[in-house]
């Protein structure tokens, strides 16, 4: 059992429950819930309360054919199951990868990434950082949510291992450095494009879409 110290903030878990999170953040939350029994149990506890309220609810009248229609539908073949977790990637990430291993693009300094989605709502990408390497210092216009899937990294916010999430706000400038033991693979979501301080990464931002 892995021990997780950095969790998804409560407000974000509420928004996930309510279905109002942008897609990129929703994937990070789903991936964290796949690894974090504590947060998952919290979500299930919410469903227990929802279930108790459902028991109390006064039922609405069904159409007369509803039951027959239901029993007939049971004979149809079941829908295909969701993609399974594979290696460090939970099922929600495998879904974004289309069931294939990542196709990394080099970013320089041994750092690789694969953009999973990028649109006006934000971006979602996988990052691969070689042991001991640093990601260029960057700030954010919006929020950035980074989940460790393999290895570890540290920055001014602390040490982050598999399952840990770092939440960076617009005013934080951070420079994550991967742990020395193995390459670090992270899932990172933003609700706005990143901005880098060094000139060249900034010029390249539209090309790399980071």
């Amino acid at each position, binding site marked *: 059992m892995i021990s997780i110290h950095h969790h998804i903030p409560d*407000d974000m878990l*509420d*928004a*996930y*429950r*309510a*279905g*109002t*999170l942008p*897609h990129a953040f*929703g*994937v990070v*939350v*789903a*991936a964290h*819930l*796949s690894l974090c029994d504590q947060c*998952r*149990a919290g979500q*299930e*506890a*919410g*469903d*227990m*309360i*929802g*279930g*108790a*309220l*459902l*028991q*109390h*609810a*006064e*039922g*609405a*009248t*069904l*159409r007369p054919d*509803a*039951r027959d*229609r*239901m*029993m007939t*539908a*049971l004979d*149809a073949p*079941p*829908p295909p*199951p*969701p993609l*399974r*977790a594979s290696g460090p990637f*939970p*099922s*929600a990430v495998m*879904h974004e990868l289309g069931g294939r291993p990542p196709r990394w693009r080099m970013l320089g300094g041994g750092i690789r990434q694969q953009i999973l989605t990028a649109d006006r709502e934000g971006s979602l990408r996988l990052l691969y950082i070689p042991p001991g390497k640093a990601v260029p210092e960057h700030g954010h216009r919006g929020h950035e949510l980074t989940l460790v899937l393999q290895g570890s990294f540290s920055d001014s916010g602390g040490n982050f291992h598999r399952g840990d999430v770092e939440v960076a706000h617009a005013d934080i400038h951070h420079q994550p450095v991967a742990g020395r033991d193995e390459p670090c693979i992270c899932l990172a979501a933003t609700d706005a494009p990143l901005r880098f301080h060094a000139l060249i990464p900034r010029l390249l931002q539209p090309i790399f879409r980071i």
Partner: protein
Amino acid sequence: MLRSTVLPLVDEGALGFRGEDQQPMDDLSELSRDLIAVRDSRDRAAFGRLFDHFAPRLKAMMLRGGLRDGTAEDVVQDVMLAVWHKAGQFDPHRADAAGWIYGIARNRRIDMARRRPLAQPDEMPEIESLEPDAAQIIALQQEARHLADALARLAPEQAEALRAAYFDDIPHSRISEMTGLPLGTIKSRIRLGLERLRHELRTIAP
């Protein structure tokens, strides 16, 4: 290990169960037993009973969420069909039938309103692979029953705040907009409601 899933409600061992001489099936609600019969033997009669119990309530839930009658009816069919197909994942250590079915309905309602479906956590391992832990199953099912009783005794404004947050699944900020009450008031009503539930569950526990 006895894990209290609902809230940190009951101290480990406080219920005084000894797992080995309890029959967990006797302590399950009829609904959870029916769901296990669907899971283990594709029991259509048991599924019919689940449908009779939950379908009208699920329809009421969908109508509360603003769906039209015909759409609500279709969504109920989808939810109950998912119950039939996903029953293999029902784990009485982690949920009672009502909470588990509610979770499926909540996700279905969310996806109705979204451009793309909400990303989902990994499915739980199929239940055959786990040794049943009688004490935990009994404790969880009892908590579920007590929770339902305790909800009925909440102050109306606390009950309403919990209903908005946990049954209609409206974000706290939106509840605040809808009611015109400050966000802090909404949060404290929800917190007080949860505190009260926790207290009630402690005093009820034998």
